[in-house]
């Protein structure tokens, strides 16, 4: 897909970051990155490579030590535009329990809108739309703590979507979920992507990364790779060297090639393998 002509939702220009009180230890080092409208961008990298910091710079939770972050043209370091920035870029964290605050799902969905002073009729309308779209309508009167992990995370996503951000940034949203919960959240993200929403996903799960339009690999605070998943996962030796892996389907292809057999490049899912092996027979 061509993304170069599309609108840039988030621009990071020469961004560096050090946490206060750490002797200027560089967590992010001169990052230049544009997130385009409608793009699904996945951030990969070993623990401590700066992924979560980068995510937090994208909606002004952190301000860069050097360089600047522009969200739809607004500088995140400018306090007067911070509320605007947060409206444009919504954030979802690892543990939904830390993000859900209200007594019922309905109040949870209203929380962000209330804070931004939406009129009640508009709030009700949006809650109806969003809960129908995300199949939460039957859960509206439930207390969030009674939901499954996957449901909670979908409520967290829905409550951020309620304020209609241009982009959604998610920091390892599936790492605390069981397999069904993971699948639920990932298919939700794919639906969002198809509906044209901009999604930035931080993950350690290579199978989740395959769905990206573009992958950025961070290594020790530097953007060491930017490109499509196919290109990323063809660099097997390099990924291993920096402590990452390739998805099992791609690993199988690598092993088969190691036996001197020829298989196609793009085998990333079970379905790809099934299709290939069946057409060959």
């Amino acid at each position: 897909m061509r993304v170069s002509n599309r609108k840039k939702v988030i621009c990071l220009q020469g961004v560096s970051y050090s946490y206060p009180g750490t002797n200027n230890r560089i967590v992010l080092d001169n990052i230049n990155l544009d997130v385009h409208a409608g793009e699904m961008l996945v951030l990969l990298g070993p623990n401590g490579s700066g992924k979560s910091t980068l995510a937090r710079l994208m909606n002004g939770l952190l301000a860069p030590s050097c360089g600047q972050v522009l969200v739809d043209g607004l500088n995140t370091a400018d306090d007067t535009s911070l509320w605007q920035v947060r409206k444009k870029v919504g954030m979802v964290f690892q543990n939904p329990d830390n993000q859900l605050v209200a007594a019922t799902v309905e109040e949870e969905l209203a929380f962000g809108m209330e804070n931004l002073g939406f009129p009640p009729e508009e709030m009700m309308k949006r809650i109806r739309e969003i809960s129908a779209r995300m199949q939460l309508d039957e859960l509206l009167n439930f207390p969030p703590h009674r939901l499954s992990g996957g449901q909670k995370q979908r409520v967290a996503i829905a409550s951020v979507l309620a304020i209609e951000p241009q982009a959604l940034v998610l920091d390892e949203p599936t790492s605390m979920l069981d397999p069904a919960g993971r699948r639920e959240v990932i298919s939700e993200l794919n639906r969002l992507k198809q509906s044209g929403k901009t999604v930035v996903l931080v993950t350690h799960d290579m199978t989740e990364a395959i769905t990206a339009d573009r992958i950025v690999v961070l290594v020790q605070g530097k953007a060491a790779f930017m490109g499509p998943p196919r290109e990323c996962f063809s660099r097997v030796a390099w990924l291993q060297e920096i402590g990452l892996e390739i998805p099992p389907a791609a690993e199988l292809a690598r092993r088969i090639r190691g036996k001197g057999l020829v298989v196609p490049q793009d085998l990333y899912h079970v379905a790809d393998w099934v299709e290939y092996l069946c057409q060959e027979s």
Partner: protein
Amino acid sequence: MPGIIDIKNLYVSYAPGTPIQRHALRGISMAVEKGEYRAIIGPQGSGKSTLLQVMAGLIEAEGRVSVCGKDLRHKKNRDGLWRQVGIIFQYPERQLFEDTVFNDIAYGPRNMGLSEDEVRRRVKAALEAVNLDEEVYCLSPFKLSGGQKRRAAIAGILAMEPEVLLLDEPTAGLDPRGKRQLMDLFSNLCRKKQVTLVLVTHDMEEVAHRADTVTVLYRGRIAMGGTPKEIFARCKELESIGLFVPFAAQLATSLQAKGLPVRNMTTLPEAEQEVARLLKGRA
């Protein structure tokens, strides 16, 4: 011969005798042999963590539970169990508390009443096992990176040299390499030192590639038990309770459904063999 963990007809309920009473575990009977690598899988809320806490003597339960030959119906036996049974909770780094990494890891061995020489030997061995350099010994554990904290917390349990190690998603949030290193460490303890492992996890690839046996929990009951190969051949049943099978098992099931002659498989080496056989048969 009874197992090192032997459970008969176990029931655990939360808030018993109140209107909100809820059974977390119902009628669990299972045995784990010494030196076995057992995985426990199940959807959220199926009782996995509760079962682990019963095995560690942290929760009082109805039914017969014996661990390392001790009858856990007696409070005295439950209270002393920590000397033989180590439990690593989710996010164990939240339990770090001492002023230095060394003292944090020495806390358990010191409480066991070991000599300071023996404590020192064990702390060093544990830190080496988790791959932490000597230069961190005198640092505050809170100065370490996330991955280092996790490893320090785990070293604190290893230093007690437990016979049974209970692991509750020990690698959640770690990157692939950190995960592999830790899981290799646990595998080695099991294979080389006959430490009995009980691993609660959502990672089916780990289960497929490492565990001897699997117990599947669903709504507080045992839904299935067997080797990874036996369990993961039951793809449909697992999916119906919200679990999924590892890549190789998914591939086997899908290819079999299309009528291709492949054997059941759960690991990547098995998949490699089967797929290579298929492709060679055509060449």
